[in-house]
C-alpha cells in the first residue's frame, strides 16, 4: 500500500471505499485525537475509551458512503465519536466529566486568564469539577472549542446545532465556567 501521509482525508475516504486497508491510514490519523476527545467527555478508563473508539471506527467505515465532502471529514468523524461516546455514557449511566491533561490546562489557562496558577493537581481538579458542574450543552462546546480547538462551524457540524447557537453556548458557557471556578477556589480569576 502506498504512503498515506500526503493524501487528504477525502482522498483516503475514496481509497478506503475501494480497499479497506486504506481505512487504517484514515483511522490512524484520528486515533489519538479522538481517544483524547472521548476521554475528555466521558469518565471512562483508557481501556473503555479505546473500546468506544473501536466502535467509532467500525461505524465510520460502515457509513463511509454517507460522507459528503461539503462537510470536513474531521467534523464528520468527531460527530460519530461524539454520538458513540454519549450513547456509551448513557449505557454506563455515569455522570460525564472531563479528563484534563497538562496541555489542556495550558489551553484553558490562556483562554480564561489563569496562567501561572494552574499547574498543580489541585487546580486541575478544580477545573475538572467546575466543568463537571456545567450543563452538558455548555461542557461539550467548551471542550470542542478550547481543548480540541475546533471553530464554530466545525462544532456546529459535530453537534448538529446552528452556528449561531454554538456562539451563544460558548459565550454563556465561558461565563458559567468562570463563576463555577471562582466559587470553588473562592477568588476572582
Amino acid at each position, binding site marked *: 500500500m502506498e504512503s498515506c501521509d500526503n493524501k487528504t482525508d477525502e482522498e483516503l475516504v475514496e481509497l478506503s471505499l475501494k480497499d*479497506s*486497508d486504506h481505512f*487504517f491510514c484514515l*483511522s490512524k490519523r484520528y486515533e489519538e485525537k479522538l481517544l483524547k476527545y472521548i476521554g475528555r467527555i466521558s469518565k471512562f478508563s483508557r481501556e473503555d475509551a479505546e473500546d468506544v473508539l473501536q466502535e467509532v471506527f467500525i461505524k465510520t467505515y460502515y457509513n463511509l*458512503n*454517507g460522507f459528503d465532502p461539503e*462537510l470536513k471529514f474531521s467534523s464528520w468523524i468527531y460527530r460519530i465519536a461524539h454520538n458513540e461516546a454519549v450513547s456509551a455514557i448513557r449505557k454506563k449511566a455515569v455522570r460525564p466529566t472531563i479528563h484534563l491533561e497538562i496541555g489542556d490546562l495550558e489551553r484553558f489557562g490562556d483562554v480564561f486568564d489563569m496562567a501561572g496558577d494552574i499547574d498543580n493537581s489541585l487546580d486541575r481538579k478544580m477545573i475538572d469539577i467546575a466543568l463537571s458542574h456545567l450543563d452538558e450543552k455548555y461542557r461539550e462546546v467548551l471542550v470542542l472549542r478550547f481543548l480540541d480547538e475546533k471553530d464554530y462551524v466545525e462544532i456546529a457540524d459535530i453537534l448538529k446545532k*446552528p452556528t449561531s447557537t454554538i456562539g451563544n453556548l460558548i459565550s454563556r458557557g465561558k461565563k458559567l465556567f468562570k463563576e463555577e471556578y471562582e466559587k470553588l477556589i473562592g477568588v476572582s480569576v
Partner: protein
Amino acid sequence: MENRNISQLALERIKEEGIKPISRNIFSIKRVLFWVLVAISFIIGALTFSLILSALFNNDWDLYNKFGFSFIFRTLPYFWLISLAVFTILGEYYYRKTYLGHRRGFILIMGVYLISTTVFGSLFYLIGTGRFIEQSLENEAPIYRHIMLNRYEVWSHPEAGFLSGKIIRVMGEEIEVIDSNGFIWIINMQDVYLRGRVEIETGERIKIIGRCLETICIADEIRPWIGMRKMMR
C-alpha cells in the same frame, strides 16, 4: 498498561466480520427524501396560505356591524391557520434534517419559510388556486363542512334572518332550500338582491339574508356559499 493499536484492531474486525460500507444509493435516497419532504411541506404550506387568503377575502365582512367583534373570532379559518403552523414546523424540521440544514438557526429557517410561503401562497391565491381547492373540498369532502363549521355558523340563525342551505327546487320567484339540519325552507325572492356570482339553480349552496317565519323566508339578499368574487382562472 500498553496502549492498543485501535486502528489495527478495527481494521481486523472489519475484515473478519466482512463489514462493507452501506451503499451510496441509500444515503442519496435519504438526502433526496428530506428535500422532497421540505418541498412537499412548502407547497402544502403555500396552498394553505392561499386558502387563508381566500377565506379572509371572501368572508362576509359586511356583517361585522351586525355581529360585532365576535364576528372575527367566529369566522377565522382556524383549520387552515393550524394547518399552516403544522406545515411550517414540519418544513423547518425536515430542512434541519438535510445534510447541512443544522447550520441554520430556527428563526432564519422559519423567516425564510414564512416569507416564501406568503409570496407563493399569494400567487396561488391570485391565480384562483385557493378558491378552487376550497370549492373542491366543499363539493367532494363532506367532512370539510364540519371542519369549517364555525365559519358558517353565523348563517344558521333563521330567527335572526341568516340562513344557508342547498337549493333543492326552483319555482319561478320561489325556491326550496334544505339547511344543514335537514329543514326545508321556502324562499320568496320577489324583491331579492342577488349578490356576487350567485346562481339560482338546483344543487347550488347559497346564503340568505331576510325575514324568516316558520318555514318561509322573505329574502332581501342571496349570496353564493363561497365567496362573492369571480374565480380567476
